[in-house]
């Protein structure tokens, strides 16, 4: 079932690239006691994700953090190696934390997975944006497949 505003973030283990390669992090580590912006997307290095979604959050990172957000997380069903490489190409370090949901565990836990096997991409994340305060969803936007707008950094900035 898809997560809703007011729900607690479901538990999952993800991976962030650290000093020694991919390091496991839990949703508790990412969300407890913090106010966090999260955006999820179908795939690193894909067109809309690379041209608009990630660059928008990188460009607006300072403005979002000025509104009281402690961190901005980019979630994709890619591994931590790919997320690191992709993030570095778009100026993410210091602005957006690249989180690899390589097993799709988080996307499935919040009910925002989608099967893109027809495009030979396996199970991926839908395109969404959330604001999560101490583990509770405060805002949730989902862009239907093939669209982009509601989940942008600009929309989040305007509504928070």
């Amino acid at each position, binding site marked *: 079932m898809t997560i809703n505003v007011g729900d607690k973030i479901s538990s999952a*283990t*993800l*991976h962030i690239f650290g000093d020694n*390669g*991919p390091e*496991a992090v839990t949703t508790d580590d990412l969300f407890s006691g913090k106010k966090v912006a999260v955006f999820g997307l179908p*795939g*690193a*290095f*894909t*067109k809309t994700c*690379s041209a608009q979604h990630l660059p928008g959050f990188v460009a607006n990172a300072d403005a979002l953090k000025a509104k009281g957000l402690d961190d901005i997380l980019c979630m994709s069903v*890619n*591994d*931590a*190696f*790919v997320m*690191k*490489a*992709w993030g570095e*190409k778009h100026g993410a370090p210091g602005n957006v934390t690249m989180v*690899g*949901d*390589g*097993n*799709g565990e988080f996307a499935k836990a919040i009910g925002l997975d989608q099967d893109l*096997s027809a*495009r*030979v*991409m*396996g199970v991926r994340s839908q395109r969404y944006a959330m604001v999560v305060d101490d583990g509770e969803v405060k805002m949730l936007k989902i862009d239907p497949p093939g669209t982009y707008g509601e989940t942008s950094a600009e929309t989040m900035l305007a509504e928070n």
Partner: protein
Amino acid sequence: MTIQVGDSIPSMNVQLVTDGPNEVSTDDIFGGRKIVLFGLPGAYTPTCSATHLPGFVAQHDDIKAKGTDSIICLSVNDVAVLGAWSDDLGARGKVDMLADGSAVLTRAMGLEIDLSVAGLAIRCKRFSMIVEDGKVTALNVEETPKACDISGAASTLSQL
């Protein structure tokens, strides 16, 4: 069951990284041709980026001089990730990239490995093979994903 010398490459449609439409059948790729196929656990991972793909890029002339029609790199990544990685490592035009994003061909050959612990889900073991007119004539599968010896470019070249 793992594919063996003497077996045929499973017949199915796969995706190659190209500038145009990229779906092609394995029958078209392998039929009547001599192909060096190597597989690896993931784009942008250390051994794959530092050793395995660069080795084949560096030795592509020598491998093709032995009558090889093309050299193909298989990975359980999508075309967006493999295309970006291939460009980063100067592989385009030298090594073709086969994006087995849903691990369908990998599983059909019995070469899958579960790397969920590191957040990579199901991937491909590190291997190389020589395929002549669709039949495997040499096969080298590494014991661990970190090893790159028998499946490397130099070792594979010596079998041609």
